[in-house]
């Protein structure tokens, strides 16, 4: 069955100048909108792991996966959407606060097992980690206090257990 759904691709790529450009450019060329993209060093020296979330039907995503795999600097790329995965995102949220709202915000933050990482006279900065739903829920709750700024990492993911991608 082909229907549009969010796909999580994980790519192991060489850590060289221009590799991010090559990878991202391929999504543009094949007409894909990247929903989120996270890149960082991996356990292997000289290689980075990218987590890319895109919307598309399975056949199209498989086509773009194969095209990605052809890039010389891409070591391996897998669509892990239908596998057991651990996926996390980190968000920093700067919320307006004053003496009367501060404790209520802290309570909400505690419920979400999030952290306050900066306190200013008129704002609090909250750090939250979790799947997208958790991050979204917290943002929704904090909206009533007034959100000044948000910065999100996008999804990073690994398969569960012994499988290595």
């Amino acid at each position: 069955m082909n229907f549009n759904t969010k796909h999580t691709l994980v790519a192991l790529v060489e850590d060289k100048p221009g590799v991010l450009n090559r990878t991202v450019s391929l999504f543009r060329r094949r007409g894909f909108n990247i929903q989120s993209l996270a890149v960082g060093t991996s356990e292997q020296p000289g290689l980075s792991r990218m987590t890319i979330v895109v919307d598309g039907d399975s056949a199209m995503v498989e086509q773009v996966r194969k095209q990605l795999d052809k890039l010389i600097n891409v070591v391996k790329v897998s669509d892990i959407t239908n596998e057991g995965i651990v996926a996390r995102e980190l968000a920093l949220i700067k919320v307006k606060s004053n003496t009367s709202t501060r404790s209520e915000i802290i309570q909400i933050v505690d419920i979400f097992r999030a952290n306050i990482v900066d306190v200013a006279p008129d704002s609090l900065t909250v750090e939250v980690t979790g799947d997208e739903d958790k991050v979204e829920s917290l943002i929704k709750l904090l909206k009533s206090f007034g959100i000044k700024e948000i910065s999100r990492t996008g999804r990073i993911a690994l398969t569960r257990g012994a499988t290595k991608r």
Partner: protein
Amino acid sequence: MKKTGAQILCESLIREGTEVIFGIIGGAVLPIYDTFSQYPQLRHIMARHEQGAVHAADGYARVVSKAGVCIATSGPGATNFVTGIANAYMDSVPLIAITGQVAKAFIGKDGFQEADITGITLPITKHNYLITDVRELAKTIKEAFYIAQTGRPGPVLIDIPRDIQQEKAEFIYPDKIDLPSYKFVSRGHVAQIKKAAKAINESSRPIIIAGRGVIISRAYDELKELAEKAQIAVVSTLLGIASFPGDHILNLGMLGMHGTAYANMAVQNADLIIAIGMRFDDRATANTEGFAPRSRIIHIDIDPAEIDKNIPASTPIVGDAKTVLEALNREVESKNHLDWLSQLEQWKYEHPLVDIGKGHDLLPQYVVRQIYEATQGDAIIVTGVGQNQMWAAQRFIYTKPYSFISAGGLGPMGFELPAAMGAKVGCSDEVVWCIAGDGGFQMTIQELGTIREENIAVKIAIMNNGYLGMVRQWQELFYGHRYVDTKLWNPDFVKIAEAYDIPSIRVKYREEVAPAIDKAMECPGPFLIDFLVEPEENVFPMVPPGESLTKILEIPEGLALLKR
């Protein structure tokens, strides 16, 4: 011993077996050109435009089946390469494009003649490099040739800043490739091959579609063995035309928009298609919805991304065509599909190509036919893009794998003249005919200068109909006969040739054709014939855009059906 970057480049090219470089000098490649005199074994051919150089390297690569090499300066030199690189990418031609770049310190500062050519060519190269350290140069060239020539071949660009060409490093040419992330599969999956063989053995109406991959992997003997052993008729894509002998009884010619009616009928009625080294391009499949409705599909290709891209395969085999066919031929049983083959014979008899008659008028198809008669098929035909290309594809009988050189994927008009020049340089013993359109010819006409200077004995046949013919045909058929901007004011091509000191002749009538061709062949150097052909002759058969292969219009009278 330490060598300069320019010397390292030349030494490395020689080690890769490069004999010819097509290029144009400029500021950012001066140090490279300055060292050419030290390496007389590298022949440099000075083109008149970088597009000419890159198409020439492409034509050269297609006939010698190793990487063609071209070189241009930074900025405009490099951007003039773009069409030729995109063309090589679409047609899987191994190409090494070397560009000069401004000195390292000036990169990103918008200096004179700076262009981000690695950025620009990112989606049209198999890979590209910007050299930032002279010590990386030799290793990079080694990798570039390896990437360009293995797996599914393609163009690789190397951008070399001017100062790196002058800096020195110890020259050690690596003998090994260290590219852990580059991989391709040669051998097909054994179980898939067995599955394919079973499908072939069980099929009653099988058809082979052969593409350029057969030529690239030099699998023509294996293809012939498969066709003969299992008695399967072969149709080809445009670029696969010479992969199977044109005079073979099992050859049905080209499929697709301007393919033969019987090739398309064969595909539409087959119960099994064995697609080898082809990518189901839309000009070959027409509307994919109606493509081969009764058929299962075995798809053999070295590029996994081609599997299921345009047409889903029931049995995909990723691998090199030659290796896969060798294995497949061992599993395939001898067969004769008498009913099916006699059906195909009957279609062939009932639906031939348009009769070009015996009249006085000069039909372009007649010219192609006469070139075939004069050469007995022993020639390399290099075409332009458009009507001339289709007539060359339909009317010449190709019996040698490298005898048909054409830009199929990108379709750049102006390919013909420089590509023919490159093909002749690559195969100096062969007769090379350039079949040009009057429109496309003027897009790279300046290469007449290169041809004269280097005395490259290309025979040029201009199919001069005074129109951008293929577009005019579409205007006639699909845009109510409104010829907007397709009529060409043309110069006197005979005088142009004269100005370039190339012997030439103009031909208006059929009876002049054969003598003119003979004259061209007798001439030891280049020769140009301006054929004033019937202005509004159309290419038939034709599958109208958007229709399936079943809806092929075979004869001009078919137009009436279209208009109804």
